[in-house]
């Protein structure tokens, strides 16, 4: 057994032995605790693309097709532009553009696709805002709840209509991962245990591979010897007029096997040389 920690025996006293501190493992295993990623970040929420930059000179959502605004002065236009108004309107413009990409018809705002598009737009806008105000905890809570809700809706959509689920993932550029079966805290002990198992399996595989290589290197030699022996036995049996136990087919099969093996070895060497 690997000597994980040394034990020091005491001649007298209540305790027979004590562990040498500090704990130092001799195993070649190093565990790195994964860094915690905030639940509101795109890496966790599954958003592959962030909110695009929207031109600040675009008019407010209600005035996009307004003819009066077209003929109005520059000052009035700037008063009705997104950059001079609340951020809500920029978010709303983005929401509408995203909904228009997926909705079934021009009046559809309640289908699952439209809902998901609206949520995605809100989430991305909020994520941008959280970068500026990271201590806005109320918004953080709302954002987390919205991300979870979207995940739940995606789960439902997957069950209801798989093709539409895939289509919406592609359209909104999202990643969906099903939640793990069981929750557990990440601890040093458990992780080291898992790593030790992996290490052992790796070691086992390495040794098996090494043994295989040794056997393979002896294969040609063995077959040549076998062929020679078989031929010799057959010849002897025929000469001594005893019942022949080695058939011609057997010898042929061995010869064929040897030729094939040699050919495959040459091919492998050629590939390796390149």
């Amino acid at each position, binding site marked *: 057994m690997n000597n994980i920690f040394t034990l020091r025996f005491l001649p007298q006293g209540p305790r027979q032995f004590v562990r040498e501190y500090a704990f130092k493992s001799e195993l070649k295993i190093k*565990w*790195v*605790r*994964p*860094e915690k990623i905030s639940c509101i970040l795109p890496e966790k929420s599954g958003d*592959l693309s962030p909110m695009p930059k929207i031109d600040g000179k675009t008019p407010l959502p209600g005035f996009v097709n307004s003819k009066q605004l077209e003929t109005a002065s520059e000052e009035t236009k700037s008063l009705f532009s997104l950059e001079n108004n609340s951020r809500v309107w920029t978010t709303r413009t983005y929401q509408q553009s995203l909904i*228009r*990409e*997926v*909705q*079934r*018809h*021009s*009046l*559809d705002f309640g289908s699952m*696709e439209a809902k998901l598009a609206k949520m995605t737009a809100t989430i991305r806008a909020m994520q941008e805002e959280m970068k500026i105000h990271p201590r806005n905890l109320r918004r953080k809570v709302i954002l987390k709840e919205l991300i979870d809700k979207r995940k739940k809706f995606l789960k439902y959509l*997957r*069950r*209801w*209509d*798989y*093709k*539409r*689920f*895939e*289509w*919406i*993932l*592609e359209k909104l550029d*999202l*990643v*969906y*991962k*099903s*939640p*793990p*079966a069981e*929750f*557990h805290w*990440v601890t040093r002990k*458990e*992780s080291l245990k*898992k*790593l030790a198992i992996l290490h052992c399996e790796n070691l086992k595989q390495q040794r098996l591979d090494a043994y295989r290589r040794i056997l393979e290197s002896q294969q040609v030699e063995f077959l040549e010897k076998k062929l020679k022996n078989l031929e010799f036995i057959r010849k002897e049996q025929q000469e001594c007029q005893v019942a022949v136990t080695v058939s011609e087919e057997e010898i042929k099969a061995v010869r064929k096997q040897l030729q094939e093996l040699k050919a495959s070895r040459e091919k492998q060497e050629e590939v390796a040389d390149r």
Partner: protein
Amino acid sequence: MAAARKLLLLGQCVPCIKHNASKIRIRRMELDENLLMYFKKDEFIFAHDPEKKCKTGDIVLIKELPKKFTRLITHSVEEIVYPLGDITDPITGKKVVVGKYRDDVEHVNKLFGKSEKAFDYDKAPPRGRLEGTKDFTHGETYIKWHEDGKDQPFAV
């Protein structure tokens, strides 16, 4: 023995890393005699499926093999009854989404003027094209417990 071989089992396909088999969950109700209540009891069976025709979540029929294929693989996939998220109503033979027929939904869309960008079921490719890129439901996910510098797609 031979009589039991013809028995068909209905179960749901769950993620499985074996290449030539699918893992099927058979769910039964078991009576707890103390509480006199039924509880779910799962049994997992590996069914031989070299082409991997059943995907995670599908409801499938499996049949016991006359001889065990391996120590674990004892059954074979007989038929996929309901693919996940692509249900056909067994009575009318029409496609269904939740509580509505697909035709009805399409009809409503047409009356409102269907958008060109909208999802079209007839043109949609079969399931499985986003596996490993955006859709990671074909495998089991786990809580990330170690940082080894490699990409871990199934870590949550």
